[in-house]
């Protein structure tokens, strides 16, 4: 039972670190604590948040998905192209955009599961090619001129709460339920913990891998549509570099890059830490170059902590 305690300790420490960060900024960054600002932080992280749920699932199996940023781009520009250039209905275009994300995820899954290409290589390849696809779709020029009603997804509110935040919370909730309480979720953990054991238990390993990449793709596609609706611009650069922010948040949240360990509970805190950190630093008008330095430092700190809490466990 020692093991259980040390995990709780770890999550507690992460949460404590988050609170500390909030306290620090509420003292040194004026206006940080204002509710509008806090909601703003939540809205800013919501896109990364949605993507990080899919990433968590992939990393739990011991994989990685570098293509999420490119998928965000393809889903957003693809939907924009359908809405503006082909004049398709908004909802239909959005759904097709999301499915496009899912299809790219499935492609990742097929390459990993059927052709045994390591996830790092597979998704590096799709990341590169599908960023290219965004440029092809838009011919390199941002797409404008969306119907105002489309903005509701990314800019609307329910009461005081921004809709993207609600979407993010719903995705986290569903993800948690899936990982914690469904067979598929437990098999994801099992696969990450010991692939051979999972195989010998009679699981269809290939199918699980296929599924996790498809889920990651779908969620990235979904995030792409929300992002498009927030910006109302279908630029080919959308989502560039997201993969790094997402991986950072996930690892920060205590998910082991080796697979099998970690919970979405922690990841949401990781996402929030990232958001609070950039928001606070912007309010304090810290030089952007130093912001990078701080971010990197925080990541190293968190992962170092993760490693050490693991050592005490043994």
């Amino acid at each position: 039972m020692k093991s259980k305690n040390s995990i709780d300790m770890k999550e507690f420490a992460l949460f404590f670190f988050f609170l500390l960060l909030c306290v620090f900024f509420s003292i040194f960054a004026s206006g940080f604590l204002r509710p509008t600002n806090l909601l703003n932080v939540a809205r800013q992280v919501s896109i990364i948040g949605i993507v990080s749920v899919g990433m968590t699932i992939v990393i739990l199996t011991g994989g990685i998905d570098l293509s999420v940023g490119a998928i965000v781009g393809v889903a957003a520009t693809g939907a924009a192209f359908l809405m503006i250039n082909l004049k398709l209905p908004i909802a239909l275009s959005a759904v097709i955009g999301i499915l496009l994300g899912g299809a790219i995820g499935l492609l990742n899954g097929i390459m990993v599961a059927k052709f045994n290409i390591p996830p790092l290589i597979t998704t590096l390849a799709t990341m590169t090619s599908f960023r290219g696809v965004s440029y092809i779709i838009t011919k390199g020029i941002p797409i404008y001129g969306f119907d105002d009603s489309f903005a509701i997804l990314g800019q609307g509110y329910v009461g005081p709460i921004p809709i993207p935040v609600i979407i993010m919370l719903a995705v986290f909730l569903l993800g948690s339920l899936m990982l914690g309480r469904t067979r598929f979720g437990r098999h994801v953990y099992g696969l990450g913990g010991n692939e051979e054991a999972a195989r010998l238990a009679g699981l269809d390993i290939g199918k699980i891998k296929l599924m996790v990449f498809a889920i990651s793709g779908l969620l990235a596609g979904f995030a792409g549509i929300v992002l498009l609706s927030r910006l109302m611009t279908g630029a080919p650069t959308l989502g560039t570099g997201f993969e790094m922010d997402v991986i950072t948040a996930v690892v920060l949240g205590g998910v082991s890059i080796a697979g099998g360990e970690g919970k979405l509970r922690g990841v949401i805190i990781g996402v929030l830490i990232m958001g609070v950190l950039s928001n606070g630093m912007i309010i304090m008008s810290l030089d952007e170059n130093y912001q990078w330095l701080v971010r990197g430092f925080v990541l190293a700190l968190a992962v170092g902590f993760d490693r050490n809490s693991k050592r005490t466990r043994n």
Partner: protein
Amino acid sequence: MPAPLLELKSVSKSWPGVRALDKIDFSLERGEVHALVGENGAGKSTMIKILTGAIHADEGQIILDGQSYAGFSIKQAQNLGIGAIYQELNLIPNLSIAENIFFGREFRKHGLVDFARMHAEAGTILARMGFKLDTRARVGSLGTAWEQVVEIAMAVSKNIRILIMDEPTAPLSTDEVTKLFELIRRLKTEGVSIIYISHRLEELYEICDRVTVFRDGTRIETLPIGEAEKGRLISLMVGRPLLNQYPPRIPVPSASPTILEAEGLRSGKLKDVSLKLRRGEILGLAGLVGAGRTEVVRAIYGADRRSGGRVRKNGKEISIASPLDAIRQGIVLLPEERKSQGLFLNLSVSDNMVFPNLRKYRRLAMLNAKSIRQDVLGMIDSLRIKTSSERNRVLFLSGGNQQKVIIARWMLMEADVIIFDEPTRGIDVGAKFEIYTLMNKLKSEGKSLIVISSDMQELIGISDRLYVMCNGRMKGELVGQDIDQERILRLAADFSDETDGPGVSGSMEGVAAR
């Protein structure tokens, strides 16, 4: 005579460079415990993997219930009621005991996993086996012995008709072995058929009905246990009569000085332990599992922190705070849990053997490939390691042959004190003899050995001197002719009731609560 439950007909399987199984015939009756024995690499594990669907045979037939199959998928084998405990533990460290037991077959309620029921049923299964464990504990936090218990629970929790056990007792101590045998007898009365693989031949006489001997991928003989007297089994296994199990003992010169001396060692479990080791001596450490033998050598080696005590080498006090210090002082330890603590599965046999001794082979700034090759081939030959070449990856070796590779590494170490913790676990009889011979050779080169073993006969057979431990204390010392089973048992027996370790009589609950 009714047809057997299961029959293998002319089953073959080749790996690149090896014919692991060559036209094997095998049959299993209902309610029979059928032992499978053979040297390391004889093909035992390969056969069971074919039965569980983990791998596929190249040719041959499997007949079950009169139906003929070319092979099974894993799922199909499960559905047909074939369960297995593999030689390598196959658990998922990050999941709980209950989740491991029911992995892939989780109970559901309203589409969600029913954890309450899972824990309840897992508890029941373990209790029926005679163990009490916290089913919520993560498997990774258990020791090897308990992992094996979970693995067994996993196999019997299924609706099995055929249970295959590949060296189930290797990590277990006497207490748990007794419980396993009770379980096997009970399963047998329930009509379950069992295939039982072990290198501890004595066990077979307790539970088995028939024995099949494999050698080099062929079936040599199947005998009723009554006709399978131990000497006969051994000669069938190794293909020649093995006259002695132990090489003749080389006496230690009486003038031989003390090379290593530990005084008043204390740590979590150890209470004031002292020992002396002479040059050119094999010193045995006997005791029940949990008596503190491993702790003593780990304390000397600097692997565990100690709270008191001194270590002297050649009369001079030395400070050892880490294994690195120990190695610099010429003391090395072959750890008990080798799979996790020593092998690089993806590297070659040769790399694995010489890895920590590369300095020994350095010539100018390069490695002397010729002398590496010479030493490695020498070891492969003398330990009879079954591998297609020294460049073969260790991953592709059979379980016992992987063990031999690590032993070889320790034999090649440039050290004058070599400590072996359970050196022959999982190793076949023929190779054991070779290991003892190599130990004797090291000894005559003036090196000193400390050997821990749960196999009492082995300690009696090879030790020049022997300490018996009990509950973290040295209970006594036996020298030369005085070393015998009765004396050891008398000293090792625990008459106090301070049982504070897993495996020590009846402390099952203690572990789970850790």
